């Protein structure tokens, strides 16, 4: 792609509106309607058991068009395929996109929000040239190979090893909770290159081609019935040293970049996880007549307040770079989700647990079944509270053999 010359915000807006309006309808989210369109409560592909192959193909088609129009990586450096505009330009396009019913490319979340930024910061020139434009064009889907069965919240205890063999490394071990691993082309792999027990000081990061012999990806079925996550078995997998990102034994620093990206993504994406839950509850109560019950009015008021507070907190803390927005917003979000489920249950009764065929009723069971995962993925509630207690409030670390701050989370 050839660099595009600097563009004013106004021109970019016009351009983006033209692109979106030609391709997708204006987004009808945000209305208080009941009985029209899809009654899905959670975002496409996230937890619903859709086929990931189909999802990825559709998302790719969209992503290519977006990229080719210069709207995919607006603030990326032109030498790696970006458009070279400012972050403000990029935010503008994101904002405009929310006004249209654009596909939610959740299969690109790890690629665009986690792996690509990590490569941009820590990668070699060759790595940047090899991957970034492909990732942003949707050709390369990425996955994260961090957690292990015995290393969830305590990521620094991971056991998958890479041993040096000439110019190569031989990797063996087992990873788990890798979203989209079985459709991914590239994996960000965290392994032990130091001695056992070296904890966070003996880890290194590699960018691994997922088609390398010895990699076996097995889908892991979730409570929802979907197979969004995977186990990844690595059996004497040979990777070149050029796949290493960052210095040997300094993988923890890179993992920290990745994980803080991850947490803010999870916090930012709360709107993607649930589709207008509060307005749907209002609409449901209005349609059923339950809205006339003052106790229901009280519950709906709490829902609306929670959603507004979450949004305001996200934008407030996001604007203030000294705050840890991820942990606070994530805790609010998981708590809100539990609350919405209870209110939905109150409005729906048995219609939430048995599919009577009525529009907008049994679909709430999607949220019911996926909710527990959000309190675990991306750092459990407990890990988030430790982060706030230790890093924001400055409380002492837990008394334990090893302290939490340096070796924080990674559990999925």
């Amino acid at each position, binding site marked *: 792609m050839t660099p595009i010359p600097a563009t004013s915000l106004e021109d970019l807006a016009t351009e983006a509106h033209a692109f979106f309006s030609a391709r997708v309808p204006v987004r009808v989210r945000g209305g208080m309607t009941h009985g029209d369109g899809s009654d899905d409560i959670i975002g496409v592909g996230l937890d619903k058991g859709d086929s990931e192959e189909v999802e990825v193909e559709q998302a790719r088609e969209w992503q290519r068009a977006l990229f080719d129009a210069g709207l995919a990586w607006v603030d990326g450096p032109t030498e790696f395929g970006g458009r070279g505009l400012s972050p403000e330009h990029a935010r503008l396009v994101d904002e405009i996109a929310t006004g249209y019913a654009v596909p939610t490319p959740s299969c690109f979340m790890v690629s665009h929000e986690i792996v690509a930024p990590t490569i941009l910061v820590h990668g070699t020139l060759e790595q940047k040239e090899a991957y970034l434009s492909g990732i942003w064009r949707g050709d390369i889907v990425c996955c994260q190979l961090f*957690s292990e*069965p*015995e*290393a*969830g*919240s*305590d990521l620094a*205890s991971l056991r998958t090893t890479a041993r040096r063999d000439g110019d190569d490394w031989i990797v063996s071990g087992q990873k*788990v*909770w890798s979203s989209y691993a079985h459709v991914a082309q590239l994996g960000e792999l965290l392994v032990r290159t130091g001695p056992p027990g070296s904890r966070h000081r003996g880890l290194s990061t590699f960018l691994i081609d997922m088609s390398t012999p010895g990699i076996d990806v097995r889908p*892991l*079925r*979730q*409570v929802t*019935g979907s197979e969004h996550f995977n186990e990844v078995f690595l059996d004497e997998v040979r990777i070149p040293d050029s796949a290493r990102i960052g210095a040997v034994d300094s993988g923890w620093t890179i993992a920290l970049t990745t994980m803080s990206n991850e947490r803010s993504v999870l916090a930012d994406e709360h709107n993607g996880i649930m589709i207008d839950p509060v307005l749907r509850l209002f609409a449901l109560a209005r349609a059923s007549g*339950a809205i006339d019950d003052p*106790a229901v009015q009280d519950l709906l008021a709490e829902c609306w307040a929670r959603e507004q507070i979450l949004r305001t907190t996200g934008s407030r803390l996001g604007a203030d770079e000294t705050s840890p927005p991820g942990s606070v917003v994530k805790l609010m979000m998981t708590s809100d989700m*539990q609350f919405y489920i209870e209110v939905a*249950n*109150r*409005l*729906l*009764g*048995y219609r*939430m*647990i*048995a*599919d*009577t065929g009525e529009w907008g009723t*049994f679909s709430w*069971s999607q949220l*019911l*079944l996926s909710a*527990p*995962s959000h*309190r*675990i*993925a991306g750092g*459990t*509630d*407990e890990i988030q*509270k430790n982060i706030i207690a230790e890093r924001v409030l400055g409380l002492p670390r*837990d008394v*334990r*053999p*090893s302290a*939490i701050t340096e*070796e924080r989370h990674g*559990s*999925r």
Partner: protein
Amino acid sequence: MEADDRRALRDAARSCLKEYAEWTADQHVESTKTGFDRSRWKLMAEQAGLQGVRIDERWGGAGLGLSAELIVHEEMGRALYSGPYFGVAQVAAALSEMTDDPANHERLAAIAAGDLIAVPALPIEETFPLEYPEVIRSDSNVLELSGSLPCIVDAQIADALLVLADFEGFHAFFWVDTTAPGVQISPLETVDLTRRMSSVSFDRVPVEVVAQQDRARAAVAAVRQGTALALSAECVGLATRALELTVEYVKVRSQFGQLIGSFQAVKHSCADLFVGLEAARSALVLATRGVETNDMIGRRPESLAGLAVARMYCGRIAFDIANESIHLHGGIGFTWEHRAHLYYRRAKSNQSLLDSTGRQARLLTSSVLAMHQAT
């Protein structure tokens, strides 16, 4: 019933349900798909006599009381048993109120023997406005049932339904063969993988009256009270087991070089769940006492209030415990293969049946006010 007898009954039920208690999600899904294994149901009757716990010895039962039956329901919840015990027990209780009719002797005997599966078909909660099916006397003097019910537990594997319907201006109970013409039973997709539910509709189904007027009232009370107590007992049972499994897990799982059960956050969470479980157990005791204190037609405010407490708390607490149980298991608890979600699903399902839309609280408050009208 002495403590020893209670323990013996509990152990018998638990041992009888041992195999089910280990079923995975896949086994449950498969079992629901392929129908119900009647031979094992029969075995349960022959070996442990669970179906006849409350049926009089004259008809082949054990002649025990409500409390004894609740011990069994608790074990059913604990084992996440997916058979029709819950509903069959209610029909047995209702028929036991009407043993002046010889037809019911046969039915009770068949239930106790494990040969008859009959479940009650009435709206899940006693609420207004109620929509009941209706029975009309046809021109040829045949009683014909029409109408529908949106969600009946285990209807798809039942031989017969005990249907509460409007009849000549009152409620009456009718016996409906599920193979009779005009009966349509459509299984529903459910959150709970361990419970079958169906929508049921009737189109001019010829039926037989089982109870009318006062006799119907006592039977309705038996079914309603029994339903609430049985589901509440299931909740206590499943919550007890979910907490046990969680405590066992946090005693063996390590992170950060120590057992996660030694983290105060985990310990206090388990302690909170334990306090909740004791509250649920107390709610069940409270409700059972209220019902046992001679409330034949289910209208004493004391028994209504007690039942409302159990309906409000047992489901809610079981869900909280099952929810936290998944959480404390971490990632593994969120996999299909791990059994944690089976408790979560059943808990929410039972909760939704027990106190579907917050009406129990209203009923409770009006019952308390009724107790204190004079003061």
